[in-house]
């Protein structure tokens, strides 16, 4: 069994920042990820980020991942790649399954930054090969350089749906249409405009009715919906596609938090069941912290800031508050507040406020 001061589960934008901050402050840190490369979703994000300079504006996600992992390289952090935390036992004993063997890790503090998984929606044949999560298509194209198909339908026009559609066009996959069940496009105008310039139709008030094909996707039937999201008969259209991409939201990957016995709350604005946490990213257990999509579906910029806060908080709870840790947290909290003031920060802000309002949690 190995003992460690702080163990971080997940090496995406939140986990990497937690590791950098906690280590720089002076804690001993181990970080674990089930992928062969650190960076989480950043490793497939070829688009440039928005915001201010401190949020890496103008830099592509893939390059932010490189910056963070090289920062980590210069720090004395213990790293586990290709390793899954498959269980959490009493007294913070983590079971870590690596390629070679099972490792037992006893942590004084744990930061969970496991991220999220993609949602699915119900329609006949949604299990056919050729129906993918949008993130899966992004991984296949941008990490491995493989095209999933040649003609694609995108379901969902949030930022992920729009960005992945554009990236499919860049990879020479024809995007036949982007469907949006709401009357308005979900994501940023700038992403939608890029698609429109390429001639990709974004159909609002439309959804997928069924996928066609025997052993794999050969087409799709789409249909217009009314204000109550009910299909309007007679508006069905058949599209010839070999790929159907679902970009219909994400849910926090929270299994380990349930196992830890953290108090869980259903907050729709945050994507589902999240751990009750305060501004310092501490859960109902004083030795467990969260950050990133796991604590509420948001974006990489906010995940990085939450990661910084979680890293500093975990350090403080072990070794006490230092001037430096205090400064990092204050700064990150101000920046988080600023990002969430934007029009797309409204939903997560409401979600976080709802958590804060519960039974005097602060």
């Amino acid at each position, binding site marked *: 069994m190995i003992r460690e001061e702080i163990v971080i589960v997940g090496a995406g934008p939140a986990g990497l920042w937690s590791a950098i901050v906690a280590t720089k402050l002076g804690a001993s840190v181990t970080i674990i990820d*089930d992928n062969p490369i650190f960076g989480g979703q950043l490793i497939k994000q*070829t688009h440039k980020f928005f915001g201010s300079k401190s949020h890496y504006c103008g830099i592509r996600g*893939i390059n932010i991942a490189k910056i963070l992992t090289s920062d980590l390289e210069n720090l004395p952090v213990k790293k586990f790649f290709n390793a899954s935390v498959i269980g959490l036992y009493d007294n913070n004993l983590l079971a870590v399954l690596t390629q070679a063997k099972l490792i037992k890790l006893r942590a004084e503090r744990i930061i969970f930054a496991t991220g999220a998984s993609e949602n699915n929606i119900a329609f006949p044949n949604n299990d056919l*090969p050729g129906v993918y999560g949008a993130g899966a298509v992004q991984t296949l194209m941008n990490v491995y350089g493989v095209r999933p198909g040649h003609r694609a339908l995108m379901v969902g026009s949030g930022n992920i749906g729009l960005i992945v559609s554009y990236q499919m066009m860049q990879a*020479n996959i024809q995007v036949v249409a982007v469907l949006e069940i709401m009357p308005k496009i979900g994501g940023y105008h700038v992403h939608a405009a890029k698609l429109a310039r390429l001639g990709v139709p974004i159909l609002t008030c439309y959804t997928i009715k069924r996928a066609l094909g025997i052993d794999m996707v050969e087409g799709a039937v789409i249909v217009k919906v009314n204000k109550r999201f009910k299909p309007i008969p007679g508006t069905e259209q058949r599209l010839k596609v070999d790929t159907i991409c679902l970009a219909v939201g994400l849910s926090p990957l929270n299994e380990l938090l349930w196992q830890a016995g953290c108090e869980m709350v259903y907050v729709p604005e945050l994507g589902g069941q999240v751990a009750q946490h305060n501004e310092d990213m501490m859960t109902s257990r004083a030795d467990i912290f969260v950050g990133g999509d796991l604590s509420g579906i948001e974006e990489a910029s906010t995940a990085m800031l939450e990661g910084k806060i979680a890293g500093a908080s975990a350090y403080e709870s072990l070794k006490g508050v230092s001037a430096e840790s205090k400064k990092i947290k204050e700064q990150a909290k101000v920046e988080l507040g600023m990002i969430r003031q934007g029009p797309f920060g409204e939903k997560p802000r409401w979600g976080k406020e709802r958590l804060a309002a519960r039974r005097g949690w602060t």
Partner: protein
Amino acid sequence: MKALANRIQQHPILDFPEKKLVKFFFERKEIFGYEGEPIAAALVANGIKVFRYTEKLKRARGFFCAVGKCSSCLMMVDGKPNVMVCTEPLKSGMRVNRQFGRGKIRALK
């Protein structure tokens, strides 16, 4: 070469450096993929979409989540059933087969 059929050759942002091409077997047929990439990526690059059939309804299953979470991509690899090919690295000479139901444990070579 067939292995390149679904490979992205030119991309406005990304470079895909040439990696070591290795031979492996899908349903006893010789195909090629890059060493170390997930087996699933090599299969999709070769145009193979059906990875297994389900136990009860015999429904086809393929690549879905890409991150080792959903279990859609379980295949027989070197006689071992239930291998998640979306995360399992490809090695030269691997014998990859579609899995039917829960698969069978075959004697290893």
